[in-house]
């Protein structure tokens, strides 16, 4: 591991002023791991665990404000989240292990980096190492022609096909969360679908954060009255594994017809994959298997499989159909 200097920030202002050439560290579950692999080599670590961002609060408009330092397990087991945002609780509890969930934070989970084995290889993006445009732009992508069973089928480019690994983010995409950020230019808020970036020609740029930005809160809108939500995750083993395909759905059915639908998918996209196509295919239709299958076809219409991951296309469709059946049962 490269050496670094360590400072503990007692306030948000102090954290922001120390942010130059630094990485913020909270739970450390991604960052420490990647520092050991020399994927991350920060000069300075700013410990933000003292900041007052560890609360879950009801907002006056009926929404929920989640502090960036709220641990994944606390968020998953929060009674309000379990009652009104079940999809988020289910997604969190399907991710990682209990130990990691006790450490990992809401803000850190938003910034979780891909599990692409080429990206995680210490020498990737260096001379003699695997090509990785995410590590070093212009060095190519070893995964495109390599072993790519777990890689993405939606949102890829010829520069990068790395899957976004988070479960929490998939649920937040379906819940239309809003991310609040504080940085050198002041405060701003970012709609969830605008936060993560498609790889395109710049897979090294993964999100809308600018240097020195600190995630402070994630706001969930007021729960949709009468809706049901489900997170369904399919993977190689029943627990402690990343998704091959997952679906987060929030639906409201009235008189047999779908009046509200939000759909996001995980394990298949280069970012948490909100599917407006599936939502359009569901709205106003009857809640039955034919309609669900049509929505799944729409969601995966632009899927682009590679050598080892063609199975994900059908798997993702069935995952979405099953999750819609569960949510409307």
């Amino acid at each position, binding site marked *: 591991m490269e050496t670094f*200097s360590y400072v503990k920030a007692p306030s948000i202002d102090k954290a922001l002023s120390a942010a130059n050439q630094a990485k913020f560290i909270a739970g*450390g579950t991604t960052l420490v791991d990647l520092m050991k692999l020399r994927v991350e080599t920060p000069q300075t670590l700013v410990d933000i665990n003292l900041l007052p961002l560890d609360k879950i609060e009801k907002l006056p408009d009926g929404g929920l404000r989640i502090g960036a330092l709220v641990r994944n397990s606390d968020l998953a087991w929060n009674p309000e989240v379990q009652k009104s945002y079940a999809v988020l609780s289910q997604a969190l509890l399907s991710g990682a292990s209990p130990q990691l969930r006790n*450490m990992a934070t809401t803000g850190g989970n938003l910034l979780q980096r891909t599990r692409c084995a080429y990206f995680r290889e210490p020498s990737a993006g260096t001379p003699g190492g695997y090509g990785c445009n995410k590590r070093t732009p212009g060095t190519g992508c070893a995964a495109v022609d390599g072993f790519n069973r777990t890689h993405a089928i939606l949102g890829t480019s010829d520069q990068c096909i790395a899957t976004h690994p988070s479960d929490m983010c998939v649920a937040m995409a379906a819940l239309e969360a809003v991310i609040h950020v504080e940085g050198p230019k002041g405060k701003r808020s970012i709609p969830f679908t605008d936060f993560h970036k498609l790889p395109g020609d710049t897979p090294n740029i993964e999100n809308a954060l600018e240097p020195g930005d600190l995630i402070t809160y994630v706001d969930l809108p007021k729960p949709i009255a009468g809706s049901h939500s489900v997170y369904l995750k399919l993977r190689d083993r029943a627990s402690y594994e990343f998704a091959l395909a997952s679906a987060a759905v929030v639906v409201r059915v009235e008189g047999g017809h779908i009046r509200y639908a939000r759909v996001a998918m995980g394990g298949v996209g280069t970012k948490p994959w909100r599917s407006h196509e599936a939502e359009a295919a569901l709205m106003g239709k009857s809640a039955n298997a034919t309609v669900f299958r049509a929505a799944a076809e729409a969601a995966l219409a632009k899927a682009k499989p590679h050598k080892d991951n063609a199975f994900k296309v059908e798997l993702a469709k069935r995952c979405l159909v099953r999750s819609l059946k569960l949510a409307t049962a």
Partner: protein
Amino acid sequence: MADSFDVRFKHLRSHSPSKPNDEVANCDQAADRQFLDLEPLTGPEEHRKGSSFSRRSFLSGLGATSLLAGAAPLAAAAPVIEPETGETAAVDGASDLTLRINGKDYRLRDLDPRATLLDTLRERLHLTGTKKGCDHGQCGACTVHVNGRRVNSCLSFAVMHEGDEITTIEGIGQPGNLHAMQAAFVEHDGYQCGYCTSGQIMSAVALLKEPIGPADEDIKHAMSGNICRCGAYTNIVAAVRQVRQSRA
């Protein structure tokens, strides 16, 4: 036996650190700094007599040639100060700090900010009950409790834990005074080689306070962050089930 050990590894003890600092110069075993750091915690008198000997120091001695020649664990670079109570060193950047472990304060000097909590426990404080498996948060062998919650000590820097209450397997129970979970693991044969066992037990003790369901399936999910290469899972579940039922 201790004498022959000393003679046998005398060549290793002649290595001295390239840049001895004041702290080490004041130490009786300045030349043995690296070696001394791998000794179990004992009083200074015992060190002086050279009478301390343990399985760990013997095994460390066997590996010491490569250790001295190559990269030592980051936490093994400086001596440890004996447990003290009520004293907290100022943390400037990273170097000196006090960790509270199993109800005792341990003062650490010159701690590398890169030292994980796991390496610090094992290599600086010689609390070797906590095991290093994958070192990447995937196996659970390093599980300890921080403020009552289980975490992977390999994915956390020690400098981030000043003021935290840390509990390791040594603080859960001791021979003759086992925690109910330790006794249940013995009763149900919840291990084979034993390497993952301390992490399994730390997870199992923590889940007793977590809001999980009553079924075996719930135990399996709650224990899924702890890998057992020997495959003692069935017996581990039996041990956890017994303790949960006895406390229900």
